[in-house]
């Protein structure tokens, strides 16, 4: 029954991406090309990040939380933002609306992230005889990550693509984007320094992704309003 479990976990991990694509107008306007391009950009970004991590970081001797190293990691994490910037602004998408563009980029980005980080452990681990909750949590994490990437892409499109936005909202947009970009470091801090258990961390991730999505939505609709 282990293949069953594997399929369940895979559905939880990758299902939402597919559902999101097929349920929203993304599928109607055939934005798969944009998704694939974003995924390719993600791969490039991941490569650059790996090189940076390998050159700038020491191998940790223990599992403790080293502030300097973590700071470096946050800075390296911003490479993600640069990658998203590249995907949103530099890639030429044939007549795709801004709304669809950020969704397609966020979706492609999150899907590539899930495939790269979660598929191999799932394939190796979830088919083992031993039952663990690990892969279920991993699937939930993928969900939270999707929501967060979409929020970040939405904020990114506000920052870089929309010219006429309410001036008062600009600092808030930047602050939220910064918070979203540091989210991986925050969860890593919770996990390692405060020694939160996986269920708690995943719960936090889901909750925070929910909150951030709500805020992004509010900001997005505020900018959408005609001034």
């Amino acid at each position, binding site marked *: 029954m282990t293949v*069953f479990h594997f399929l369940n976990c895979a*559905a939880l991990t990758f299902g939402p991406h597919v559902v999101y694509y097929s349920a929203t107008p993304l599928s109607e306007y055939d934005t798969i090309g944009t998704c694939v391009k974003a995924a390719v950009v993600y791969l490039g970004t991941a490569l650059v990040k790996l090189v940076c991590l390998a050159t700038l970081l020491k191998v940790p001797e223990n599992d403790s939380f080293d502030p300097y190293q973590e700071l470096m990691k946050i800075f390296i994490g911003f490479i993600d933002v640069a990658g998203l910037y590249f995907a949103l602004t530099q890639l030429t998408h044939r007549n795709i609306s801004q709304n669809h563009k950020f969704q397609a980029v966020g979706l492609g980005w999150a899907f590539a992230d899930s495939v790269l980080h979660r598929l191999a452990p799932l394939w190796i681990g979830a088919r083992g005889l031993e039952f663990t*909750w690990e892969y279920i949590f991993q699937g939930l994490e993928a969900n939270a990550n999707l*929501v967060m990437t979409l929020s970040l892409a939405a904020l990114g499109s506000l920052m870089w693509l929309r010219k006429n936005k309410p001036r008062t909202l600009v600092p808030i947009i930047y602050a939220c984007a910064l918070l979203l970009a540091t989210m991986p470091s925050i969860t890593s801090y919770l996990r390692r320094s405060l020694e939160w258990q996986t269920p708690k961390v995943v719960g936090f991730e889901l909750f925070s992704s929910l909150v951030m999505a709500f805020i992004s939505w509010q900001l997005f609709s505020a900018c959408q309003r005609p001034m």
Partner: protein
Amino acid sequence: MSSSPSADLLASASSALAVLLVLLACVELGDAAAAVGVYRLIQYDLAGAPLGSPAASLNHHAAALPLPAGADLSRSALVAPLLDLPLAFLREYLAEKKHLGGLLILLPKKLNDEDASANSEGKGQVKSSLAELEKLLLHEEVPYPVYFAFQDDHFDNLLSDIRKIASSGQPASATTGGYKLVVSTPEPRKVPSPTISNIQGWLPGLKGEGDTEQLPTIAIVANYDTFGAAPALSVGSDSNGSGAVALLEIARLFSRLYSSPKTRGKYNLLFGLTSGGPYNYNGTNKWLRGFDQRVRETIDYAICLNSVGSWDNELWMHVSKPPENPYIKQIFEDFSDVSKEMGVSVGIKHKKINVSNPRVAWEHEQFSRFRVTALTLSELSSPPEFLESTGGLYDNRESAGAESVIRTVRLVSESLARHIYGLKGRNIDVFAENSSLAINPHYIQSWLDLLSQTPRVAPFLQKNDPFIAALKKELSEHTADVHVQSDVLDGMFTFYDATKATLNVYQVASVTFDLLFLLVIGSYLIILFSFLVITTRGLDDLINIFRRPPSRKVKGA
């Protein structure tokens, strides 16, 4: 299109719902897979009849006692602590040829746990049930895999979990989750031509001037190998590790005496550590056969040491010649003189040998068959049965005390010295304490410790085994002409390898859980889909999706 961020929100809401459902389904987090070292029940053929357990690989769900009524164990592995396992149950299964998926017997922690030694009653119970279990399993063919493991916290948790599942009323099967025990080992193979290695060493005596006759020889012999239900646990501290240790100490004491020409006696001393003891002293037979007839005839008498590690004040001298025989009488007198001084008693037991009977209960009987006067010193008052008292599961370091070995060494070496130097009747302690010839308790302790950590079932000890090399080296420290004689164990026995294995314990999810999980994920994805369609395209679109096949929809678009 401001509605798509709200779809994110809805996605989050549904994911939160999913978390809730999963958290409801999850009661406690599962343990990781554990790997435990386990010891397989011996598998051997005796004169063609398969005995022990021919099965090695195990892949079944774990079950625990007490069993639910009418439980079918043919597809489950029974995990039972030794003291909870009713032997009647096992006998019934063996007699009725009922099949069991497997059996994992949990031995009390290290057998010499503080708890067990604290109450001697519990210890005695462990010992007796182990002996009975071993006897049962050794002489039967057990068609399912049987493993031994030491009980620890992990197994305690496992047992209580299994009982919890069982008490909820469902039978142990794939639908209740629980634990799966997996041992994946290759099919056990025959041990090709099992060897037995006998180690001998000489302490040559001093010939007088112009003495052309061969000096008489006194042999001291002990078998060092063991046999038990789990070959990898068969350390035999008492049977016959204690005898081997006593022999090494006697060799050490006399090597000191024989190192100076002044104190070198007029007897050659021959020390023999023999193998194949459990198999009717097959090794002793081979060893004696290997001697030249003339050398064999010089052996005045042989003292065999067997199970001398746990006696208090009564030791038995087993002989196959009548006690009235002058030789025997004289040796017995030597022993009883010393024993009286030591405040212990030595009894004599006479058992005639029957040459037509292949069973050889005592090592000295092999000597007697070669017409060499011999005796066995043992704490056992009656001859052991075949494959009994050969270093079974219970025979560990706890069952052999250095004190008993020291007493044996004193008794044997003191009486030997009086015999060799003709000090009979004179009250002289040759090996008095605090003298340079004193018995060394640390030496005995450390050798007992070493032997108690080394499983020594002869077929699994290759002739170049480090343990045999260590024995050879130790004997050559004290004696001369040390020689290892390797021979093939006689063909009645066939042994199979795979004595040790690794048991993987997996906590597995039940099929019901998987189905439930599928249901949760399916509904989550469907809800997510519906919400996204409604919020981004409107309710009508959702209904349209179900109304028309998508291919026509695309065409229409």
